[in-house]
């Protein structure tokens, strides 16, 4: 085996541990290294990262496609802001999680009937439908209509800069708790059942796994985390309106999940950073075609991801082998 191959093997085996350590160190050091404006962007990136962790649980491990996670963000943010003045922000975010879990369970029930790309499109419709709802005249008295809602969470800080730092640590703590929680959830009885259901629902059922229950639960849990992330993010920004969490966020979350490896949890936060920063970069390259740049870059990444093993083999001069029966 070449040196390169051995190195690749080491990274593959220890990659996740290394990445986790790197992400943690960076997260703790960040507010000291980059105080001021940039901290706010990073707080938002972590919120999106929570959303991607939720998506990895559902899609990466559970095999159910969701292009509707912006809907959980939106629902969570509205529930949090509507309830926060009465029950306090922390409790409101918790209720936001529960509300998002209920929506998730509903989608999970639909997911029992349609799979794959169809489920992806159905959830996309949820993102579109929920986008429309806060503006409806019947709901406007609660949702603030098209002018949105303001809420300033009470924090033990007075200056805007100090508030930003507080938010950073709060969001980071929640993100850590959720990520560690998902990590252990995946290694629990439920996690094994979830992956079994994804791999082969028929076999999982024959082994005693209630695949329907597991799939619906996964959707509810994933929705809850995304809803919590939405509530937090709303708190960080202090203002929400119907277009705070547009359907494009669903797309960005899904892409963030795909390009950072569907089954690597710490990498989710790299995905979150991509959501915050890449559109700006793409816009800097060309404002008219920024989404085209984004789409093109995504295709290039996917191409590398799919064909990397073959390209690597060609690079190291070994015969490329294709599995028998691979004709797709």
């Amino acid at each position: 085996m070449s040196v390169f191959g051995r190195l690749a093997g080491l990274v593959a085996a220890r990659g996740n541990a290394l990445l986790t350590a790197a992400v943690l160190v960076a997260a703790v050091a960040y507010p000291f290294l980059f105080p001021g404006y940039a901290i706010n962007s990073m707080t938002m990136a972590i919120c999106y990262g929570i959303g991607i962790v939720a998506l990895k649980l559902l899609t990466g491990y559970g095999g159910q496609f969701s292009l509707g996670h912006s809907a959980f963000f939106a629902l969570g943010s509205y529930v949090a802001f509507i309830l926060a003045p009465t029950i306090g922000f922390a409790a409101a975010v918790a209720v936001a999680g529960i509300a998002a879990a209920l929506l998730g369970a509903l989608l999970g029930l639909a997911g029992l009937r349609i799979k794959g790309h169809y489920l992806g499109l159905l959830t996309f419709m949820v993102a579109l439908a929920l986008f429309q709802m806060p503006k409806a005249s019947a709901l406007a008295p609660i949702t603030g209509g098209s002018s949105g809602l303001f809420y300033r969470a009470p924090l033990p800080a007075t200056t805007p800069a100090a508030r930003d730092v507080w938010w950073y640590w709060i969001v980071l703590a929640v993100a850590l708790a959720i990520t560690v929680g998902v990590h252990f959830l995946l290694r629990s009885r439920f996690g094994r059942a979830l992956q079994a259901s994804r791999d082969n629902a028929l076999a999982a059922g024959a082994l005693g796994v209630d695949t329907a229950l597991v799939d619906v639960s996964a959707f509810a849990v994933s929705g809850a985390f995304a809803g919590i992330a939405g509530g937090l993010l709303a708190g960080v920004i202090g203002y929400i309106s119907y277009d705070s969490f547009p359907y494009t966020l669903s797309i960005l979350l899904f892409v963030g999940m795909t390009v950072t490896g569907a089954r690597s949890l710490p990498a989710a936060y790299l995905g979150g950073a991509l959501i915050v920063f890449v559109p700006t970069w793409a816009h800097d390259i060309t404002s008219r075609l920024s989404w085209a740049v984004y789409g093109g870059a995504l295709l290039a990444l996917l191409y590398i991801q799919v064909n990397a093993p073959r390209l690597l083999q060609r690079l190291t001069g070994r015969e490329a082998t294709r599995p028998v029966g691979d004709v797709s």
Partner: protein
Amino acid sequence: MAGGWGSVVVLLQQVLTGLATGAVYSLLALALVVIHQTTHHLNLAQGEMATLSTLTAWQLLSWGVPYWAAFAVTLALSFAGGAAIQRLVMHPLRGGNALVQFAAMIALFLLVNSVTNAIWGPNARAFPSILPARPLFEGAPISGQRVGIILVGGALVVVLYLFLRRSRLGLNLRATAANPVPARLAGIAVDRMRMIGWGIAATIGAAAGMLLAPIVTLDPQMMFNVLPFAFAATIVGGVSSPLGAVVGGLVIGVVEALVTIYAPALGRELKLSLLFVAILAILLVRPEGLFVRRTGARL
């Protein structure tokens, strides 16, 4: 106030209007079903591709190309474009799993949408219709252009249906999707079938776009707004049934038109929410679609 006859005429008018929009939904739904039947994918970018085609047609018309020539050239270009996208974008990613394929379609969606916006800008444009916009005859409950949509759309649906069900190429397309390995062993050029499938779907989408454009606003968002309805049509009709997609599209068009007139507030503000609730209800009660006969055993 509107008496008995008046309300019947209004109802009839709305049903016919709904059938015209529904015919367009049917067409786009059919495009979705065709791609599904040839590649087992659901093309998220289908609507964006159709918008691109329609704006291409608009460009040809604005250069002075006669209507039917522009129509035909656009269909041909769309076929080539769809096939090219399959060959250049989807084919190199064939080794990826369903997740990768889905992400690729998201990328396509963003790319096509962005390019369309960059070329034509966000402004709405007027697109001519085959038949005049005035009522078909004095006092007729439907405009000429909607009759045109129903006729042309209906004809295309019939042709496609026969093509998929009866022709050899249609059979090969369906065999490719059902199971590519034996299809290849049986001598079917699977890769070419996939290109043709994408080409056909793009062509149908283009036709749907050109029919729809006169009665809605033609801008880069046009088909994006229609795609949820076409998707709903495939759910109503059963995801793998061409006939179901057609019937589903018509049903949704009519229901939408009725909601618009009888519950205007709902129809204007919560159209998509209603649509979603309806889809969810259908999935929970009759997941195989309303028009697919239940089959006994499965596995």
